[in-house]
Structure formats: C-alpha cells, structure tokens
C-alpha cells in the first residue's frame, strides 16, 4: 500500500501544470518556426511525438478496456475502476493533444472533423478517440456512484479495442512499407495496449500485478517474433529493415524497449513490488517500440521506390528527437497527469491515492 498525501498531490498538480506550460511553449515555438525545429525530415516524417501518442493511447485504451472487462469478471473494486477510468480519460486527452501538436498546420484541423472521409484511418481514429473519451466520461460519472454498469462498461471495452485496431490498421494500410503492412501489426498494437493497460492497472491495483507480468511476457514474445521472423524468414527488404532495428541507427530504441521496457519492468514488478515505477518503465518501453517501428518503416520506402533493379542505398538515416519534441512530449504527459489529478479531486473527491 502506498498513500500520497494531499500536500504531495498539490505539489504534483503544480509540477504537472508547469510541465504542461513547457509543452505549450514548445508548441508555440514550433508553430512560429515550422517543423524544422524537430529531428524529422521528408523520409522520417513521424518521430517521438507520434510514438508517444501511440503508447499513451495504448495505455489509456488498454486500461479503459480492462475497466470495462472488470464489470463482468470483477477483478477491480469500484474505487479502482473509477480511478482507472479517470486515468484513461486523462491519457486519451493527452494523446489527442500530442497528435494535434505534431501537425504542421493545426489551424485547419476543423477540416478533419467535417470531412467524414472514412477511407482515411486518421478520420476513423479521431472519431473513435472522441467517442472513447465521451463514453469514458459518462462511465466515470456512472462508476463514481459505486454500482456496476455493465452496458456502459461493455461499450467502453468495445470502443477501446476498436481504437487500438484502427491505429494498427492506420499504419498497416501503408502497404508500401512492408514492416507496417505486416499481419503482425494489429497484434502488436493489441499486445501493446494489453501491456499499457495492465501496467496502469497494476499501479492502481497492485494485487493485479500477475496480469501485468503476463502482459510483459506476451509483449516480449510478440516483439521477438516480429523481429525474428523478419530476420530469419523475411525477404531481403524485410531483413534489411530489421537490421536497421537490431544493429543499425534505430537499435538504441529497440534495446531500450527490451532492457528498460521489458527486463527492468519485470524485475521491478517481481522483485521490488515498485509497481508504479514498473508501469512507467513498461510504458516508456512501449513508446520506444513504437518509435523503432515508425522509423524503420519510414526508411523502407527509399529502397522500395525503384523498378530498375536495386538502387544502392547511399543515404544513412538516423533520428534523435530535438529538445522541442521532448518539450512537446513531456508537456502533453504533464497535461495528462494534471487532468488525472484534477479528476481525482473533483470527480472522485480525493487526492490521487494508490490504495490496495
């Protein structure tokens, strides 16, 4: 059991708000200068912010799905469920902010909301995310009463799974990128959501840490299957792409996922019981996984855009996020934490206490 006092909660509120302001400042700077202040280019078009967006949504939607499932299987108390829903809302709003901060021209975002172009998985993603947040807010209000709400729990569960599937296909339907178009992609996104959700669940309900441990093992297996298949049984393109991940410019993110995201999280969960920290390292690992997946997939196109025999790949790609991207990411997470603390105080009428 660990308790956070009211004073600590207030300090956390102020710190998270300050981080949110840092993110806002980074965004305004990026708006004035353009995305030249990021580490991105015309090949590496998505980087840290989109990777963290995927990880945050995986955590939030995964946790919301588990809250919905617990209505039927009863593995969460009503207080834990309320806290979990509040966390999921905060995570999904933070993810939404992060993806808007990544846009080059966000002032025209209105056109996305009104296009209803459902052949675009971005549009589906937007509407699924919006629906998830709205349903989660209704669910939170209902759950705060302490009674079971199976119907709304089931709706939340379906929408949460839906958004993860949509995000998996969002990448997978870029069929010229073999790494993304793999049939493993949606499975990888679902196992990521299970990991993110169970990590946050373990932080809220420490007695459920076994589920977290199982999710860590599944995530490790899925990742190793994905990497191993491409290296051993893949085509030349798949092998070359995966070499960039295991022994190339993006290896740092892959090994960060394996060492920090999986091994350190497992040790923390099994040996020390520091589940909050273990959840954090697991979600950082999840973000690292999404980052290498994005980056390696993006570089793949260069070798593919030929039809006169292989063009020698003369350009070496590497990516390190800029300070602005780090500021944006930390800021969005700060806003998420601030919202969670606020929801805990206003809706749940108590500080963000981790109770078991």
């Amino acid at each position, binding site marked *: 059991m660990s308790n956070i006092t009211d004073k600590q909660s207030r300090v956390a509120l102020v710190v998270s708000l300050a981080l949110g302001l840092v993110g806002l400042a980074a965004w305004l700077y990026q708006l004035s*200068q*353009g*995305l*030249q202040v990021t580490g*991105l*280019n*015309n*090949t590496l*078009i*998505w980087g840290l912010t989109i990777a963290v967006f995927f990880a945050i949504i995986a955590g939030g939607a995964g946790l919301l799905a588990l809250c919905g499932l617990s209505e039927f299987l009863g593995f969460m108390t009503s207080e834990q469920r309320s806290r979990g829903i509040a966390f999921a809302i905060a995570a999904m709003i933070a993810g939404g902010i992060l993806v808007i901060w*990544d*846009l*080059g*021209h*966000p002032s*025209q*975002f209105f*056109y*996305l909301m009104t*296009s209803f*172009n459902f*052949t*675009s*998985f*971005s*549009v589906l993603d*937007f509407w699924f995310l919006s629906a998830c947040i709205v349903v989660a807010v209704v669910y939170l209000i209902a759950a705060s009463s302490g009674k079971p709400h199976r119907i709304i729990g089931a709706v939340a569960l379906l929408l949460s799974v839906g958004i993860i599937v949509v995000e998996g296909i*969002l990448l997978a*339907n*870029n*069929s*010229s*990128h073999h790494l993304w178009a793999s049939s493993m992609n949606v499975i990888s996104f679902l196992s990521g959501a299970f990991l993110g959700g169970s990590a946050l669940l373990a932080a809220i309900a420490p007695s459920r840490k076994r589920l977290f441990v199982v999710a860590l093992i599944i995530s490790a297996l899925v990742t190793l299957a994905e990497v191993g298949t491409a290296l051993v049984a893949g085509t030349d393109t798949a092998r070359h792409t995966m070499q960039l991940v295991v022994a190339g410019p993006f290896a740092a993110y892959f090994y960060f996922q394996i060492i920090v995201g999986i091994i350190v999280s497992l040790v923390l969960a099994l040996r020390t019981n520091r589940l909050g920290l273990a959840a954090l390292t697991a979600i950082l690992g999840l973000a690292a996984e999404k980052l290498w997946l994005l980056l390696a997939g*993006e570089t793949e*196109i*260069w070798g*593919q*855009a*030929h*039809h*006169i*025999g292989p*063009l*020698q790949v*003369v350009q070496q790609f590497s990516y390190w996020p800029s300070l602005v991207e780090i500021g944006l990411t930390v800021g969005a997470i700060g806003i998420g934490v601030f919202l969670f603390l606020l929801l805990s105080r206003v809706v749940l009428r108590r500080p963000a206490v981790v109770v078991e």
Partner: protein
Amino acid sequence: MIIDLKRCIGCNACTVTCKQAHGTAPGTFWCQVRASEEGTYPYATKKVLPTLCMHCENPTCVHVCPTGASYKREDGIVLVDSERCIGCRYCMAACPYEARTFDFGDRSGYFPEQEQTSYEAMMLEQHVKGTVSKCTFCHDKLEAGGMPACAQACPTHARVFGDLDSEELQALLKRGAYQARPDMRTNPSVYYLPK
C-alpha cells in the same frame, strides 16, 4: 507521361527547371533524379531514375487524406489544396513513390549568408509552411496549352508528355513501357520505357 530510361542521362535539368518554375524551398523536390551505382570498379555503371508524382488513377494519398486536401481532378491530375492540408503527413507515408514533400518552414534560401532574391521571396510566399506539396504536372502551363516544365527542359527528350490514348504515346507504350510498383495497384499515369 512516359520516361524513356534509355534516353535519360541523369543531368537533373528536370530537377532544376522544376525548382525554378515553382520556387520550392531548399530540400523540397517535386521532381528529381535518383542516382546509384551498379557493379564494382572498373565495371561500375551509374544508374539513374527520374521520379515525380505518378498522378495515379487510384491514388492512395487521396484515400488516406483526412481533410480532403489531396484530391484528383477530372483530368486525372492529383493536387494538394494547401488551404485544407493540416500537415499530418499521412499521405507521405501512404505514397509508394515518395513523391510528396513537407514544408518544414526553412526560409533561409540556398545561400543563407545572402538575402533572398526578389524571385525567391515571391515564389516562396506561394508555399504554405507546415503543409505537404508535390508535383502539379504544371497544370497552369497545361491549361495555357503548354507542357510540364520538366518535359520541356529535358535535353534528350527522355520525358514525353501527352495524352496516353494518343497514337504517338500508344506507339511508345508498345515498346515495353511499364509502371512503377504495379503491386500497389495505384495505376500510375507515368510510365517508364526500359533501358
């Protein structure tokens, strides 16, 4: 358009004339020649591949665009409306030909130590920071009865522009013309003649 790889000498005249005609920012290439080597010395040869937007019949960029900024005209030309583009770069990920570029906002020009020329400044103003852009097939020139700048500037006439149903282009297509990445089922309007 048909590009005859046997005629292309990789001189980049198309690349330069495209940049001149559209005044794109440094790092932005709507038309370019990719170069590589084949074999090893002393038998190494240079391999070149002129590329541009393929103006596909079934454009994946248009399908994935969340705002409708990417669209296909009735005449088949695929364009981007910068006043609707939110700069999400999804179309860049979806394009199998890496034909699209993002405006990262660099306005320093090719010679940052010097001021931009009036022409540079005027042309750069037409490009919207934070949005995606691509080859327009010089649709303004076409509407005035001309042809794309790259086809006009090619010193070896490697780029042939016209109606693909015309007798002249049909005759060229019969010489073994093929489309890039047919596995993507995009049905490009740009064909290549083999080397």
